[in-house]
């Protein structure tokens, strides 16, 4: 099969893109058509001062669209799903790793996704698993407070998981208005009047909680503290299942993070 383009060769160049998925796909386009595998692909804000050749890749929606269409047709639908999910993950150097996966996929086709033992594929699958697991955990760990009839919550996940929990919460609270603010990624899922959207927001200040809200929070804390069996205390087990980095947003355990501050 001589018509197939060979894998891009490693090159001493760093691609800079704007952080969007289309921007990333433009980088893929650039890589395939110049036949070079860049040393790194970085967001604009992370651009380093270095002697290596740095190339800014402009986001080009036409090029992006061509790459987007090529993934399901040349590799598989599963590959598309994997790529979009991993792009939202906190995997280090995710852009480069996805690019390597795509270059290999263009050569090998859809069966690549079933090579679960392959190092490139396994890295992406692990990142995907990490993200989906975090999304699943947060379906449980999000704590809403009722402020004037609307529900508000803040989260600090490692991955960008809002798109993966949006449907769940929209279906669960279809008659409510709510907002989940993701502090890590500075975005918020806002649902009101039957419409949900994800917005970029730098910060949100939540209003003071009402007396009624404080009552339910106290009831919940009391329930939480009562339901544990004293003879079986197991802090390690609790931390395995509910890692401490989630505690700051969970009212029943947030006090435990800073015991000194407790009055």
């Amino acid at each position: 099969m001589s018509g197939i383009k060979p894998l891009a060769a490693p090159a001493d160049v760093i691609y800079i893109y704007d952080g969007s998925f289309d921007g990333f796909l433009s980088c893929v386009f650039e890589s395939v058509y110049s036949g070079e595998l860049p040393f790194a692909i970085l967001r604009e804000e992370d651009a380093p001062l270095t002697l290596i050749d740095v190339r800014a890749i402009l986001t080009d929606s036409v090029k992006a669209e061509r790459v987007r269409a090529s993934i399901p047709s040349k590799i598989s639908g599963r590959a598309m799903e994997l790529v979009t999910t991993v792009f939202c993950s906190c995997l280090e150097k995710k852009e480069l790793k996805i690019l390597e996966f795509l270059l290999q996929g263009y050569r090998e086709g859809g069966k690549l996704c079933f090579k679960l033992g392959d190092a490139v594929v396994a890295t992406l699958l692990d990142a995907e698993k990490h993200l989906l697991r975090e999304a699943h955990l947060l379906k449980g760990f999000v704590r809403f407070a009722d402020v004037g009839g609307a529900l508000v919550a803040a989260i600090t996940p490692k991955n960008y998981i809002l798109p993966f929990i949006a449907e769940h919460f929209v279906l669960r609270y279809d008659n409510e208005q709510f907002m989940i603010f993701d502090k890590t990624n500075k975005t918020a899922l806002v649902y009101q009047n039957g419409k949900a959207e994800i917005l970029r927001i730098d910060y949100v200040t939540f209003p003071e909680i009402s007396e009624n809200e404080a009552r339910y929070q106290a009831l919940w804390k009391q329930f939480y503290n009562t339901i544990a069996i004293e003879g079986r205390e197991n802090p390690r087990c609790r931390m395995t299942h509910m890692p401490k980095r989630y505690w700051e947003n969970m009212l029943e355990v947030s006090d435990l993070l800073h015991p000194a501050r407790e009055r």
Partner: protein
Amino acid sequence: MDLMEKLTILADSAKYDAACTSSGANRPGKTVPSGCCHSFSADGRCISLLKVLMTNYCIYDCKYCVNRASNDCRRAAFTPEELAELTIEFYRRNYIEGLFLSSGVIRNPDYTMEQMIQVLHLLRYKHNFWGYIHAKTIPGASPELVRRLGLLADRLSINVELPSEQSLLRLAPNKKREAIFSPMKQICIEAEQSRQELVVYKKAPKFAPAGQATQMIIGASPETDYQIINLAEAMYGKYALKRVFYSAYIPAVEDSLLPALDAKPPLLREHRLYQADWLMRQYGFAAEEILSPETPNFNPYLDPKCNWAINNMQEFPVDVNTAELETLLRVPGIGPTSARRIVIARRNGRLGIAELKNIGAVLKRAQYFIRASDWPPSAQPSKEMTVRALIDPNIYSFGMEQLSLFQDMTGSRLPTTRDVKSITEAVEETVLCLASSL
């Protein structure tokens, strides 16, 4: 009495119920099919449901129970409206996935069940609540009430409490074996009928769509582990239970028929029972393979799967490139997920050790039991190394105290905690002991 006080008393009385799962109900958004944990309490158990009793007043006098009639404790009861509202408000704030409702028996079983049905009815049809509901049926309630409860709840459960009829007679004189197993059978039959009707008619009423579960107390009565897992296996088969829960007995009341108040709950034993339970449900093991009348109790140092592997070395090594899924599942270090992934991955080329590592098999254990394209290397591992890799690392965190609870039950070939000073020493002795018997 205000709500805070009631909640405290009634959650406190409900906490010994092990089950808190919310899996098996499929209403997108309202429930999560795989279940969803909302928090974990200080004892490391998942909090998924608002687990409370309707009331802790009880006319029964089961010896092991904190709520028994003769126990002098504070009593309270929720009104149906109060409990429904609390559930809704907790659910709105995403504290919980739903309600787990059990109750002490007031007046008689039927009256108690009617109270519970009232709460569920309020939730479902007045507040339009479609979150998860797990309800306990009261032994001795009429079949018609069990039926009504099943049409409102996602999961029903009825506790067998103690693993044999003799123990039940001795410790729970008001509960008859018949009163436990006849509703269990009824639930099994009605759920099956409901599933068949749903095939024909989409809107047929759903009866306990998430199935039924049960719980038994471990360590309050003298049954062996072999008896317990055989009973569990029988119930899984006969009544199509989704889960059997095991609850290490925590002395809560003084009674001459029970372990002393300062006795420690047998947590490691409970852990082994759950591991065995998992082997029966997910790995295709039969109870008879895990334990036998000759060795009726678990090995405290090895999990049941490793224990089986050591006693069946003739089955190994298993070739990961050709073995059936069921065979792969028997290899220590390969679980259901990695077994399935191996089967998928090997269609696209032979697997070596590097691939297995990427797939997620635990090679620390699996390496002694498999053949792969570049494995094993020529040198045979020593028996000692094999055994050492299999020792359950968890026993270090469970500690000496838990091991000592096995003292009188383990087979004679394992060191007893009397002979050794530290847990490391005990493990070393066990390694030598097991290695020599290989």
